[in-house]
């Protein structure tokens, strides 16, 4: 056993204390049922409902990116850096929408106004409100928080989904949203990777 592997459980406990990066052992320590069930009150029970929930998060993300990118809060380089992330989110929406249609489900409503989006952000306990962001840092933190909520939604869904194709799609998107987290973290922390990729087990926020 290396000292680093010995240190692994300590790190996990630290992560648990910080409420992030909880792994399998972490879930067991918390009680796996409570770790997941706490996130699923009023939870969807069918595959279409689960995809609707994921799609609603992605629709909110797209709206947030649109608003932040269109704002005057970003420098040109930051705006350029965020454009591919918005394009990725739009691709996620299209893919989930296709999957949902195949399941016979109806697309959840997308936010059309700042008020609707802010209500959704509040409901999901995401800090920051569109239209009230004061600077670049505020804007990037809002996007980072929203991405973490998205990753958390996929984490929960992956424990529940049964269709292999939906599981694969969800895992591919969750990994991409985790990459967004890392890139926004790099922008926020001037390229300091330690802050941008702080957790070895990425489960987002539920």
């Amino acid at each position: 056993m290396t000292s680093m592997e010995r240190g692994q459980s300590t790190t996990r406990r630290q992560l648990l204390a910080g409420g992030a990066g909880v792994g399998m052992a972490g879930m067991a320590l918390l009680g796996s049922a409570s770790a997941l069930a706490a996130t699923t009150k009023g939870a969807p029970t069918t595959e279409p409902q689960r995809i609707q929930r994921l799609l609603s998060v992605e629709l909110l993300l797209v709206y947030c990116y649109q608003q932040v990118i269109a704002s005057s809060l970003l420098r040109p380089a930051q705006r350029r850096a965020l454009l591919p992330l918005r394009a990725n989110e739009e691709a996620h929406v299209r893919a989930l929408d296709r999957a949902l249609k195949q399941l016979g489900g109806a697309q959840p409503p997308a936010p059309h106004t700042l008020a609707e989006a802010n209500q959704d952000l509040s409901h999901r306990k995401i800090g920051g409100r569109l239209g009230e962001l004061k600077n670049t840092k505020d804007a990037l933190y809002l996007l980072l928080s929203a991405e973490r909520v998205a990753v958390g939604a996929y984490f929960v869904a992956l424990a529940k989904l049964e269709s292999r194709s939906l599981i694969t799609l969800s895992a591919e998107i969750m990994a991409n949203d985790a990459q967004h987290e890392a890139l926004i973290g790099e922008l926020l922390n001037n390229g300091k990777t330690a802050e941008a990729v702080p957790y070895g087990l990425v489960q987002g926020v539920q």
Partner: protein
Amino acid sequence: MALAGCGSNAHLPKHAAKTAPAPIRRRDVQLLNAALYLERRTVAAYTAGIPLLPRPQAKAAKQFLNEELQHTGELLALIKAAKGVAIPRAASYDIGHPRDGNQVLALLHELESAQIAGYLRAIPELSPGPVRAAVATILANDAQHVCILRLEQGENPLPSAFVTGRE
């Protein structure tokens, strides 16, 4: 370059094994062991490659190494929770012969991508659901590693909206 694998038995929280949810199938243990082999190979590559990297890249790589070790610990915990037996560390891993920082980055990129592809093959096969979710947290972190490695290589960090390990 061949390097002895790092880590054999991670310190496993006893409660984890006792309270892990639902029985994990024998097939799951095989899948988790396959992932463990790839993680250990990547750990070997980081360990061997870090001295060849310039300082800022080495700092990031050390962090990634720590996270890879966390992944091996997680997989060992899952295998133990399933009352399975983890495969032993290999005496050495074939990780090629990178000679400079660029070659090390290329190697790490390749190995992280192989892990991602492996996890995406395994995740739909795994059950129960919480095990699938736990493994996805490792996949997500490896995807972050690839993204940052691509940045360091001067490549597009987000070549696709869907992470497959083939992009």
